[in-house]
């Protein structure tokens, strides 16, 4: 088992380095010029300024030398300096990551909390109104444009009804909770600041629902299909012949066997939430990685883009590894 994990981790590292090479080549080959994006038209019309600027950021070195410098930095845990914010990329990411992590985790819990029970209910009461309702919910979730859903939710619950607070992580006049994690819910709870906790939680509701919408749809569909499959198996018939109660058959016999595909999808969905936060964060002015990504892309800030891609790809790879390992816990046949 340990050997398996070590092999997978080594493969993940190789993939991550190859991934960095791909992004690096893309950044070198595309026609967009960060000089123009950064200096603006007027400054960029002066050749001396441009040369000095390129030299300062090492853009005048040959490509392989730049990549060498980048790899060397990476080995020392350094992702370089962001061209737009003039700060180390790793610092930027560390600053913005907690906001995204908090949002994505709450969304994910919401998505599995709604999606799995809904999928089970749809499979158990197949072809009933519950099934139809689940189908409509998942269809709308998967088909709604995230950015539009965000607008609609803000317009209705903030603009019109006034039930929810506006964009942002906390009330603009409040001080953010101080704490070790950067996750406001946990920091506020640790500090015993319940007013701050409520503020942060209230601000989380709308963006979390918007971000969860598509994932709820995917998880509901997958759970339903997997449950239908395992409810049709012989052991369910046996359990029924033994006279077991419906809850026991559904929850103890059918559900554990249906969970394997759900966990696969769930793992991917969580990694996708981290990346998919771009739209949600933009509309909700959420100071997270998604908005940072968008701003870096718009500014052609390649050190930042490479840094984010590395971090998110690494998350992807780790989540996939965790998913594969969890099979062993869920399915005894995989254990050796």
């Amino acid at each position, binding site marked *: 088992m340990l050997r398996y994990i070590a092999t997978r981790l080594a493969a993940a590292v190789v*993939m991550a380095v190859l991934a960095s090479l791909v*992004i690096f080549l*893309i950044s070198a080959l595309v026609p967009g010029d960060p000089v123009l994006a950064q200096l603006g038209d007027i400054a960029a019309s002066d050749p001396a300024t441009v040369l000095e600027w390129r030299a300062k950021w090492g853009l005048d070195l040959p490509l392989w030398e730049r990549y060498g410098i980048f790899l060397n930095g990476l080995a020392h845990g350094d992702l370089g300096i962001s061209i737009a914010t003039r700060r180390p990329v790793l610092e930027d990411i560390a600053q913005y990551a907690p906001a995204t992590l908090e949002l994505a985790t709450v969304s994910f819990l919401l998505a599995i909390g709604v999606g799995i029970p809904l999928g089970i209910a749809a499979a158990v009461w197949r072809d009933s109104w519950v099934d139809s309702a689940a189908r409509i919910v998942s269809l709308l979730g998967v088909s709604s*444009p995230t950015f539009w859903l965000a607008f609609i939710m803000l317009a209705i619950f*903030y603009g019109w009804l006034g039930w929810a607070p506006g964009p942002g992580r906390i009330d603009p006049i409040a001080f953010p909770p101080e704490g070790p994690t950067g996750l406001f819910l946990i920091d506020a709870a640790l500090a015993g600041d319940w007013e701050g906790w409520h503020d942060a939680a209230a601000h989380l509701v709308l963006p979390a629902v918007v971000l969860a919408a598509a994932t709820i749809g995917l998880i509901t569909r997958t759970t339903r299909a997997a449950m239908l499959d395992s409810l049709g198996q012989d052991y369910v018939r046996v359990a029924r012949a033994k006279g077991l109660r419906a809850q026991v058959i559904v929850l103890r016999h059918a559900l554990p066997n249906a969970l394997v595909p759900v966990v696969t999808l769930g793992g991917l969905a969580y990694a996708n939430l981290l990346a998919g936060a771009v739209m949600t964060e*933009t509309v909700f002015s959420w100071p997270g990685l998604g908005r940072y990504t968008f701003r870096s892309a718009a500014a052609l800030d390649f050190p930042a883009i490479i840094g984010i*891609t590395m971090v998110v790809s690494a998350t992807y790879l780790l989540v996939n590894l965790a998913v594969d390992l969890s099979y062993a816990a869920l399915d005894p046949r995989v254990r050796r």
Partner: protein
Amino acid sequence: MSATQIVLMPAPRPRWRRRLRRYGPAWAGSALVLLWLLVALLASWISPYPPDAQDIVHRLAEPSATHWLGTDVLGRDVLSRLLHGARLSLLAGFTVVLLGAAIGIAVGVVAAWSRGLVDEALMRFTDLVLCFPPIILALAIAAALGIGATNTILAMLVVWWPKFARLARALALVQRSQEYVEAATVLGLRPIRILGRHILPNTFGPLAVLLTLDLGNAILTFAGLSFLGLGVVPPTPEWGSMVAEGRELVEQWWVATFPGLAILTVVVGFNFLGDGLRDWLDPKTRSR
């Protein structure tokens, strides 16, 4: 009635209700998709105004008899822009999915056929692209290439083909071990002919389902990139950028709401159609 009874013995239902359940979504999906295709084709004829005609006096006018869906910040008719926007959305969706599928299927089928080193190299490359979060990679490439529909479509293509490569390879591997392929090999047919005339047609069903479902996905992604300001150059009517223009206008809700509804209905249409196709092609999931 207890849950298990329903699980194991579905109550008999009237015939029309079963038919509606089985074919209803597919019909609704086809109707929606057909409707939007017609709109895209006929946009110039059915729009009440030209898409970029400005009526400065009636800026941000509410939906009314003269402007059914209201007007935007520049006094342009939202309905006319929405109808014209169907063109680009559908065009982008079809281009990305069809080209992405063509590239992916070519890679997957070649990999499955050659096995060995070529297979390994092709699939590792596919894995490499798949390990990037698609929206972030597309965002970075689209930003680097510059604003414009063609560049955005190119950026999407880079991240779009791998899933088709994986599926096509898996399907081709299954088909490869079938007896009819062996028979064709024994008959001395050339590999390219076996691939094109025998294997591809047999993998068509699952691919068609994925293609249809994916069209909705591609339209959503394209609209999303446009919303972020990467998709189209401003005066072009496009749904994602229309939502972006109305994003701050909560009072003038019609500016952002209707283009979003247009995206939603198109995507729902493709999803219904894809689900319907799957049920139709796969007897196992029928009546589920």
